[in-house]
């Protein structure tokens, strides 16, 4: 059996697509909170991506990708029926709740906050809880209406689902942080735990917001990585004054302890090189036309 075949591909929004990849070993072992690494082709880099869904029977794993840099844009060129060169995972530690008592979880009032493509890794967490009878609230945020992804899928497993857009083109007009305040201050909601996944800057502000209300908050970090198995240390992050490797100690950490300012700087470490690679990629695409 040839592995890493793209079984399905779907465009979810401009520049955002999902792919179902044949990888039975990964599908059989993936758990909520984990991630994986993809190499598109011979000269490609190791790209860490979130897991959106997995089907143990079919042996497939669903990834959701936003084509931004040269490597994700290269990935976007692949179609159903094509093969990816490498696909490895699941990586990182599963979400903490996976090992907790279900009855305890049922009592816990949980709020998930999903931003942009961060909606993808939120889905398997909410679904896992839903399958075990745990209802949770979800806020999902996007820049604008056409970038809202996976809404129906997520709604089918959520307790309440609230959509926010930065420009007000759909749902609540404002940031996810504003909606957290809205729920708590105007709608009388109370939460025991918040799990936020999205752009680093969003997670920073969600953590600041929940801190105000003393809601324990978990964030899922997406720093630069090379191997993803603890070997390179590129994903170093300071949590509660200690250095952690996001790939093996995380990716989920206590959002109130993460040094987000350092994490944001570290994430931009290869920006110059990435811009160059992207320009080179665009030239290549241009020439091919």
């Amino acid at each position: 059996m040839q592995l890493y075949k793209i079984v399905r591909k779907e465009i979810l929004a401009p520049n955002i697509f999902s792919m179902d990849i044949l990888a039975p070993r990964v599908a059989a072992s993936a758990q909520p909170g984990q991630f994986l690494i993809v190499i598109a082709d011979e000269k490609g880099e190791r790209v860490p991506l979130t897991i959106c869904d997995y089907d143990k029977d079919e042996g497939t794993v669903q990834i959701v990708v936003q084509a931004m840099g040269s490597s994700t844009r290269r990935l976007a060129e692949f179609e159903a029926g094509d093969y990816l060169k490498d696909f490895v995972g699941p990586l990182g530690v599963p979400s903490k709740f996976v090992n907790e008592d279900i009855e305890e979880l049922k009592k816990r009032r949980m709020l998930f906050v999903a931003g942009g493509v961060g909606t993808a890794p939120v889905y398997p967490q909410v679904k896992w809880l839903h399958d075990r009878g745990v209802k949770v609230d979800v806020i999902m945020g996007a820049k604008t209406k056409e970038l809202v992804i996976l809404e129906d899928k997520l709604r089918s497993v959520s307790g309440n689902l609230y959509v926010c857009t930065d420009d007000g083109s759909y749902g609540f007009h404002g940031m996810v942080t504003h909606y957290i305040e809205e729920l708590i201050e105007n709608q009388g909601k109370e939460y025991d735990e918040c799990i936020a996944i999205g752009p680093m800057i969003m997670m920073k502000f969600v953590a600041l917001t929940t801190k105000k209300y003393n809601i324990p908050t978990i964030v899922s970090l997406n720093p630069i990585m090379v191997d993803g198995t603890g070997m390179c240390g590129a994903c170093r992050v300071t949590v509660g004054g200690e250095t952690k490797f996001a790939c093996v100690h995380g990716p989920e950490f206590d959002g109130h302890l993460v040094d987000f300012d350092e994490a944001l700087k570290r994430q931009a470490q290869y920006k110059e090189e990435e811009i160059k690679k992207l320009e080179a990629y665009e030239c290549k695409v241009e020439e091919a036309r």
Partner: protein
Amino acid sequence: MAKAVDRFKRTPIAVQDPEVRIHNFDEVCLGYTEEEAMAEAKRCLQCKNPLCRPGCPVSIDIPRFIKHIADGEFEEAAHVLAEYTALPAVCGRVCPQEDQCEKTCILGRKGEPVAIGKLERFAADWAREHGIKVGKTKPSNGHKVAIIGSGPAGITCAGELAKEGYDVTIFEALHEPGGVLVYGIPEFRLPKETVVKPEIENLKRLGVKIETNVIVGKTITIDQMFEEGFEAVFIGSGAGLPKFMGIPGENLNGVFSANEFLTRNNLMKAFREDYATPIKVGKRVAVVGGGNVAMDAARTAKRLGAEVHIVYRRTENELPARVEEVHHAKEEGIIFNMLTNPVEIIGNENGWVKAMKCVRMELGEPDASGRRRPIEIKGSEFEFEVDTVIMALGTSPNPLIASTTDGLETNNHQCIVVDEKGRTSREGVFAGGDIVTGSATVILAMGAGKQAAKGIDEYIKSKNK
């Protein structure tokens, strides 16, 4: 014909000119020609009780393979090597011979020892270039063995078992087999296409299957491997986690582990424009550490265009790196700052490294390792302007497998505990290499892989009696 004029002097070997090689990643040492190899081999005294052999972790019959070279029987020399080692072309290049076989060579008492490593490399390269197939396998015995990790320990263990007729599958976490030979040791010391790949191909020819992208402990567990029908498992997953100093500023932009720097360059081929992985090398780089990995990182940074400093807290005499690497590094213009220890890394307003605060050291009394302990000289702090810091301080074992396998005993260094046959505390599970010893050498890992293969063979045979 080249001839050893003086028995106590080594036959010189060709290397790439330092001025040229600092601009490329091609191999530095060019190896002996047939004539040179024969001349060097003839220096060997063919001792009745060779002192070199006990110095070899895999006990190669050194005088015997050298005799064949001296007689121009290069293929026979390769066959002798194959009896003892799965990776002669690798060992000839990366073994610390001066601390092993060559250290005890009798010629070394009065002059220079025989260049055993260079001759090993010659025989292995000659055999490969002439399409000689070495290593024979016994008929299949139908017993399945799983090997975790395709570095030197795993390759050796797999090769030995395949030759005995076992059905061997290697599970490799990365996308390329080879372990440290691929991600760690640079191209200019160990060419991948011409040396490492053929060794892997040779393994496949022996019937070994290699499954890449499988992280044992995540993708599958050891328990699942037994469920899949493997009768024994060998853990050769290496020492992968980089150590840092724990000083302020280590998470600034521009501070890298040597593992990250080398993996980007070697495994991901970041030095090539056409590969997607980026690499950062500043204008002035400090590599902290004095081992082979420090030399590899320094010489890689040099080739990427930086001014490079080695910063080491003891003196040159204590450098753990191979003598040849230090020599090559110096030729290439790497600047050695000895008796210097960083205490802080200083960043600019944007979070990038701008300098390293160091102290001067002096040597005191010998410590547990027998080396004189470096002591800080009070009031000697100074700032050293750099924009990149590479930490090459060694690695510790990845706890992934131990933490997901019940009943696997580890020590307080997270190393897996084994007996002399490579057996762990868990029945049917063996281990060897850096995961047992902490970071060591290619050849010691190979020795452990070989030992464990014997242990596995005995275990499976006794179980199926």
